[in-house]
């Protein structure tokens, strides 16, 4: 008897979980690899088990969906059709003659290797947050909005007592209400999108009754926690010497510039700031998958253009948990069908397909509502650190552009080291591109995370299961 086909799913967030369950139900053997100790990804990030939270749902939305996913995973793990490998940090997926090798590092230390051989891979690597710099953004106490949420959901930790939540995007609302529910005094939610732009996009937004209700729920909670909403505003500076003490918020004019005289200082010890999300595409790019802009290109079946590689969720475009679930389901079904030698029929994922279409339209509309201020680069002073790792300032980037002939992020990087540090430009990439006067383009990162040279030297030599 030949062994069942083996699919490696990378990432145990909504997309990876939905994909694993669908693929296992379709008759393939699944290995689900994820960096976290518990499944859930960023959206359903769970508190560490040892913290023994009795009501983790108090920090979550769409908890019923999570319970269904968790139950589905548990059933398949128990039946042996899904193997869930926690704390596996995947640094590279290698294409071999007869399939793929997934290379991972184990545990939080990420020193010891693990390898998984599979016939096909499904990338559900999610996304990370985009943050645009402003003076003071490197002060301790300034965290990304997603970071504040991750620390809250996963570690049940907050960094202070008084917070401002700022930037732009649908993530800010749950972050503000979550912090407030956890006892933090949220003084303001500073959103650069203007209320008017919401009205302009009302038709696309109104096509999503569920989403409108969700928004109304957040609004009520903001009110209950007395969170001041400053729409059409931006943070121009974070103040403090050794840590954050206050921020200055200012109103934006119609052109997206700071309105002189509108600045106001808000004391706080925490600033949670974010300007949207970016897809994690490192593994896909190293495999040779084509991209659409910054996201992995997929067809209607969520197949990338590399045979045997599927992708689903935020890595194929930012669209939230519900879209990730639909895409994961389709990808899992497709992979199961193709790996068992059948052509998926037209009705195989009709319902998920409808959800996918609707939510992609919705998020495209949201994208045009939530935008950073048009002139955000003007807030980066010459002494503002832009590249946090290598401490490259706005002035150094501007000098490389104006005097050394750099017109693109790669040349800026070569001439200033911006983006050469530990995070490999994930944090400063959008800012460097903006200062160079061009859009963000994907940068190649053959290692999705740093890998010890000793592990690299022996990659591919481990015994495989």
């Amino acid at each position, binding site marked *: 008897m030949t062994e069942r086909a083996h699919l490696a799913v990378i990432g145990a967030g909504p997309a990876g979980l939905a994909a694993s369950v669908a693929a296992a139900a379709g008759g393939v053997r699944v290995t689900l690899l994820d960096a976290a100790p518990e499944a859930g990804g960023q959206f359903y990030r769970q508190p560490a088990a040892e913290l023994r939270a009795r009501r983790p749902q108090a920090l979550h939305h769409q908890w019923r969906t999570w319970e269904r996913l968790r139950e589905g995973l548990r059933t398949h793990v128990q039946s042996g059709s899904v193997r869930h490998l926690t704390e596996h940090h995947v640094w590279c997926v290698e294409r071999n003659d007869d399939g793929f090798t997934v290379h991972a590092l184990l545990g939080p230390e990420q020193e010891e290797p693990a390898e998984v051989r599979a016939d096909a891979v499904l990338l559900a690597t999610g996304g990370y947050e985009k943050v645009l710099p402003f003076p003071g953004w490197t002060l301790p106490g300034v965290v990304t909005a997603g970071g504040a949420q991750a620390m809250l959901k996963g570690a049940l930790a907050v960094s202070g007592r008084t917070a401002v939540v700022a930037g732009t995007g649908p993530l800010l609302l749950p972050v503000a209400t979550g912090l407030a529910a956890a006892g933090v005094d949220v003084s303001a939610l500073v959103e650069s999108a203007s209320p008017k732009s919401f009205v302009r996009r009302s038709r696309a937004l109104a096509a999503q009754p569920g989403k409108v209700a969700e928004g109304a729920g957040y609004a009520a909670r903001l009110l209950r926690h007395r969170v001041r909403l400053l729409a059409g505003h931006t943070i121009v500076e974070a103040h403090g010497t*050794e840590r954050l003490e206050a921020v200055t918020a200012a109103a934006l004019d119609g052109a997206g510039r700071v309105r002189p005289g509108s600045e106001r200082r808000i004391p706080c010890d925490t600033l949670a700031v974010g300007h949207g999300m970016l897809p994690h595409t490192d593994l896909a790019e190293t495999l040779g998958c084509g991209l659409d802009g910054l996201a992995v290109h997929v067809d209607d079946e969520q197949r990338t253009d590399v045979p045997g590689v599927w992708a689903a969720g935020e890595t194929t475009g930012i669209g939230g948990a519900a879209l990730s679930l639909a895409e994961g389901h389709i990808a899992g079904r497709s992979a199961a069908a193709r790996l068992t030698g059948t052509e998926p029929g037209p009705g195989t994922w009709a319902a998920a397909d409808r959800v996918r279409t609707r939510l992609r339209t919705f998020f495209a509309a949201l994208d045009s509502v939530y935008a950073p201020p048009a002139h955000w680069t003007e807030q980066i002073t010459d002494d503002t650190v832009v590249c946090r790792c290598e401490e490259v300032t706005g002035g150094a980037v501007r000098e490389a552009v104006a005097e050394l002939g750099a017109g693109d992020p790669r040349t800026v990087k070569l001439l200033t080291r911006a983006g050469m540090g530990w995070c490999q430009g994930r944090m400063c990439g959008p800012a460097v591109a903006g200062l160079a006067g061009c859009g963000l383009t994907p940068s190649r990162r053959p290692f999705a995370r740093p890998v010890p040279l000793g592990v690299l030297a022996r990659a591919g030599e481990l015994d495989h299961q």
Partner: protein
Amino acid sequence: MRSPLELVGAQPGPAFTVTLDGREIEALPGQTVAAALWAAGVTSWRGTRGQGRPRGVFCGIGVCFDCLVTVNDRPNQRACLVPLHPGDAIRTQEGTGHDD
């Protein structure tokens, strides 16, 4: 003030002791280095390589590498990822994290 632990009805086991540069601080089972340090009122534990500026948690999910810290003599660990165990020695980090 209501705490996140209260919000979710957390009932962790008894607190244990770890050290930060030799000073004892309390940690709960399941807490990461970053969570325990935040709970102890510490928000920075690294000085940057160039300017020696203070840094702590930024992205909270292991992407930005701002929260690097030395744990049990192992440098450049991400405080937001590493869970604590009784007796762990956390050291603030300067420069590359590697001794010269």
